[in-house]
């Protein structure tokens, strides 16, 4: 009898583990189905870009083609390259992204370190202003900033050096680079915040050891603290790079038509394509199929550098996300 009970309970245990196993497998399947759905809807526009950019315009109204075109062509890219004046815009934007990214990494690190580790009067109010700089729309500041760069005097410095009352910096890259060197570039407030969180997470003993060894605050900062927040540096550089690359409003106003940024070029592409542009030598008229394929080629060309940078840095990004936290 006892044996009977034992086998029965054993049997029941088996059933239980088996049921749990089946439940686990079903859960996994559901999980991956869900992941696939989410990934599909996020990747859809990118796949669409590829699919459209690579197909012959005549393939667009073919109902038998969903993703893979029947007639591959690179003409779309050729036309988009020409009418965007791509390489010029590319060189402007890549310079801007790299230089501003570099400056943001250092200037925001200094500010973030100051806010994380030192006590000085007015610190909380100043940090509130950091947050405010992200809140204010650039439209609110654009007019004063424009006239500042249009008639730049740098408190008389220009007059001293050139003898002129002011100089015109509109159309050059300086209106984007100088603010970023002073930690006030595109969304710099966010980078200061990221750095502050990272520096707060480092042990104080690290600095104390450096001070005891006779290093001053600057030496400590550059040779002890900065190397310890590598992930923050990479994250900030990635963000600064892609957001400077994607910046449309400020670059459109400040860089003028001489130094078109890549986003300005992209925003004008539809117009450029449908007009007769003798300069670029691309004329499509109002053929919507041709314009759509060229537009997507342009989008892909614009997004490609960001995607490449992202693929190389996303490992560090995922890692640094686990360390930001709220402290």
């Amino acid at each position, binding site marked *: 009898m006892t044996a009977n009970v034992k086998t029965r309970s054993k049997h029941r245990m088996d059933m239980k583990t088996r049921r749990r196993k089946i439940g686990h497998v079903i859960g996994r399947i559901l999980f991956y189905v869900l992941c696939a759905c989410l990934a599909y809807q996020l990747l859809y*526009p990118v796949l669409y*870009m590829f699919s459209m950019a690579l197909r012959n315009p005549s393939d667009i109204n073919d109902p038998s083609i969903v993703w893979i075109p029947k007639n591959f062509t690179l003409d779309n890219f050729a036309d988009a390259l020409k009418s965007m004046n791509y390489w010029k815009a590319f060189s402007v934007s890549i310079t801007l992204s790299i230089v501003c990214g570099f400056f943001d990494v250092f200037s925001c690190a200094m500010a973030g370190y100051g806010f994380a580790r030192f006590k000085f009067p007015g610190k909380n109010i100043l940090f509130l*202003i950091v947050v405010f700089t992200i809140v204010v729309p650039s439209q609110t500041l654009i007019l004063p900033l424009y006239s500042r760069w249009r008639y730049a005097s740098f408190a008389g410095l220009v007059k001293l050096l050139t003898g002129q009352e002011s100089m015109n910096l509109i159309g050059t890259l300086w209106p984007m680079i100088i603010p970023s060197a*002073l930690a006030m570039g595109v969304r710099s407030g966010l980078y200061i915040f990221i750095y502050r969180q990272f520096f707060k997470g480092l042990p104080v003993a690290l600095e104390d050891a450096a001070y005891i060894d006779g290093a001053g605050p600057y030496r400590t900062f550059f040779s002890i603290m900065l190397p310890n927040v590598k992930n923050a540096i990479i994250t900030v550089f990635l963000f600064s790079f892609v957001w400077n690359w994607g910046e449309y409003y400020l670059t459109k106003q400040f860089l003028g038509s001489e130094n078109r940024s890549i986003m300005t070029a992209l925003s004008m592409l539809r117009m450029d394509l449908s007009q007769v542009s003798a300069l670029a030598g691309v004329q499509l008229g109002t053929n919507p199929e041709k314009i759509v394929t060229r537009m997507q080629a342009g989008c892909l060309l614009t997004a490609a550098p960001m995607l490449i940078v992202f693929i190389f840095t996303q490992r560090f990004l995922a890692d640094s*996300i686990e360390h930001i936290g*709220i402290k």
Partner: protein
Amino acid sequence: MKIGSKIGYETKRKWYGFTFILPWLIGCILFFISPLFQSFRYAFQSLEATPTGFAATEVGLENFQSLLFKDTTFLPSLVGSLGDLIQVPLILVYSLFFAILIKGKFPGRTFMRAVAFMPVIIGSGVLMQILKEDVFASGARGGSADTYLFAAGNIPALLNAMGMGSGVINFVNTVISRVFDLTWRSGVQIMLFLAGLHGIPDYLYEASSLEGAGGFAQFFKVTLPMLTPMILLNTIYSVIDMMNDYGNAIIRSINNTMFSLFKFGYASAMSILYFIVIIVILGLVALLLRRFIIYQE
């Protein structure tokens, strides 16, 4: 003597701290505070561009008056922009869900994370706008605007067959056409929630499961309370992101007034008013949510 040198060290550290934020402070005064005040002054002026700068005439409150009482487009588009904020709770729920989904370790995690962060990387204003216009516009795919993603499922027809009214179908259509907007706006939020989830110490989960808490109880009694600071941050970020967006109706009309109509003073008044509205909304959000925030010790 000893005490004196200690105070000296403290004061010194204060000054060192100050020198670290000095570049930012200079930048902030030059490129934020003084332009903000300048813009505020412009709002009370009528400006004309001349070869040597702006020629200003003081007009007092006239800009604001005509903005609020005469302009027929400003207030409606302001209301429209505020109406878009309904999406914020949806964004929060979606991004929290996504973050929890990809938090654990599983084969393919790197890929899913990369996909989740991709909107942050390429979701910039102009590109978003073009994608919205082209991917969802009728024509290219032969379908109508709302059937892009679920074309095969044809949900509206299904609902119609089920006997739903046109109100429901329209609602579903709006929701579907906003899926793109919603998911492509959630990149940063997913990141922040992920950061928050990783910040919750494991012992809380261990302790609660020893006490007999199941998955649901753990979510509502551990995960959600511990994430409240992130929820506040994400709400604020989402509001800012939507209000400052390139496609926002108010932003567009400010740009239009400024660079097509050249009514600089008027545009400044608009942007100042808009800025105040944003601040008020953020203040309300912070006040409303503050009571629910639980800070980790």
